């Protein structure tokens, strides 16, 4: 049996974290973190995480700041943004430079997310 894909989801909203966990645990191993600092800790503790999905607006550091730091430590892992905001210049730049591989909009589209996550396999 092939190993299940491990997804790290970072969001400061507990409801979002919980629902994400329930919805995507069916297919993937889901690790959750409620801010960037926690996210980096999780990445360190779970080196087998395949893909990271992060909210944009969070305390301490925002999604892109978190990804920037994490990318320094784990340059090979793909990172994505899932946010309630429309696409901004910042996000466009991140996409263009390859800092993130995808931008998803809330409310999330399960099928779209699944197809992107599955691609890391």
């Amino acid at each position, binding site marked *: 049996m092939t190993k299940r894909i491990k997804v790290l989801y970072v969001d400061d*909203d507990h*409801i*979002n974290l*919980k*629902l*994400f966990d*329930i*919805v995507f645990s*069916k297919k993937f191993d889901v690790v959750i973190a409620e801010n960037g600092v926690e996210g980096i800790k999780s990445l360190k503790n779970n080196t087998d995480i395949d893909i990271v999905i992060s909210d944009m*607006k969070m305390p301490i550091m925002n999604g892109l700041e978190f990804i920037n730091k994490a990318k320094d430590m784990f340059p090979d892992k793909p990172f994505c943004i899932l*946010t*309630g*905001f*429309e696409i901004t*210049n910042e996000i466009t730049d991140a996409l263009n430079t390859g800092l993130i591989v995808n931008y998803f*909009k*809330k*409310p*999330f589209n*399960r099928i779209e997310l699944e197809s992107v996550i599955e691609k890391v396999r």
Partner: protein
Amino acid sequence: MKPTLHKKRHNVFFVYIVIILIAIGILSLCLLRNATSLRDLENTHHTLYVLGSELKESSEELTKFCRNYVITGDASWEQKYWDILNVRNGKKARSNGRLIALRDSLSKLGITKNEYQKLVEAEDNSNALVWTEKTAFNAMKGIYLDSLSKFTVKGSPNPILAKNILYNEKYHQDKANIMRPIASFRSMINNRFLTKIEDLKDINVHLVFAIIALIISSSVLSFYAILVMRKKIINQLVELRVSNIKTEQTLQNLKNTQTKLIQVEKMAALGTLTAGMGHEINNPLNYIMGAYEVLNIYFEEHGSKDQEMTSMSLTNIKEGINKVSNIVHGLNQFSRDNSNFDEDCDIHDTIDNCLLMLQHQMNDAVIINKLYYKTPIKVKGNVGKLHQVFLNILSNALYAIGDKGQITITTQKDNEQSIRIEISDNGIGIKKSHLHQIKDPFFTTKPPGEGTGLGMAISDTIVKKHKGQLTIESEEGKGSKISVILPLKKLNYDQKN
């Protein structure tokens, strides 16, 4: 144009003209004075001539009277003779009542020494003749000269002797001796006066010429000055018109800038607001979506007692989420604060977004016909700004049809280079007189408070920024058609807003 230079030139003209006028005045005064002296000279000349004639005539008359007396023996002739002589010598009043000797009259008129001598000579000779004539008179009376040359000798009257005295050769010679100096005097006077008069006349002719020349030159100068001033006035008028046009342009620019500023401010504020609001709405939508997925999984695993109702409810939840999400997305697209003109913009999506945002204004009697091109059309540009354009055009169309009517939206590719979007309505239309003002900032026919009059001005500016074209066709009472042509290829857009 340099005003100081012109002012200097005008001052020079002015000084020239004033100098010429002063010169004309002085020369005219000289002319007047010369004319007066000329008249005086001519008068004096005439008077002198008359006085010379008087001397000559009086001498002739004396001869005539004394001869008459000698021939007729009538004593009245002798009386007349003495009267003439007394008048001439200033001893008897003249016919005008004045008592003056001829010699004094002449000397008073200012004659030269030579002339005076000639006159004196003539008078002396005349007086000498008077002596001869007196001898003739006395011969008529029988009185004769003694050895001391005094009439003391008495004898018988001798008319023959008297006649002889008055008609002999000596008498004629003496007479001629009077006339000769008078003629000389006259010719001297004539010479002197005529030369003077000629000189004066010459001077006057020169003066007149000089005055005419000055008048001509001042006229020419004035004419030139008028020409120059006319040119200057025309120049100033032209400058005035140019500055008027500039002012109008500045005013128009100001209006446009004001429009832009208002719009930029408004859209920036709206952008911030909708972005924040969008996020706050999308987040709970995300819960609902999550919960929906959870319920889906649950019912898939455990089944439902009423499968139909469950799946209908779940579908409706999904539908609701999508609708809200689309509205938020549309609002965000419309007001997004982005000056990038290099975004991919799906025209059909844009128009659909706008229709969604205007949904609340449409009742059932409003029909929207979408005649879209068969495939999606994407242009390069600013998504938010293109949303503004179509929202504005569609909003105007809705206003024009009111409660009931049709709006037809057609999209087509003109060629590989450009697309044409036509939005037509069967509303109230636009008055022909208003048609050319539609794109002017602040032009509106809506009641106060209902429209800013900026919509079409902004739309036109945005379309132009996309290197496109916005045209308006309308017939009052029948409806309007707005056409937007946009280039398909990416052009070198002006990134500055």
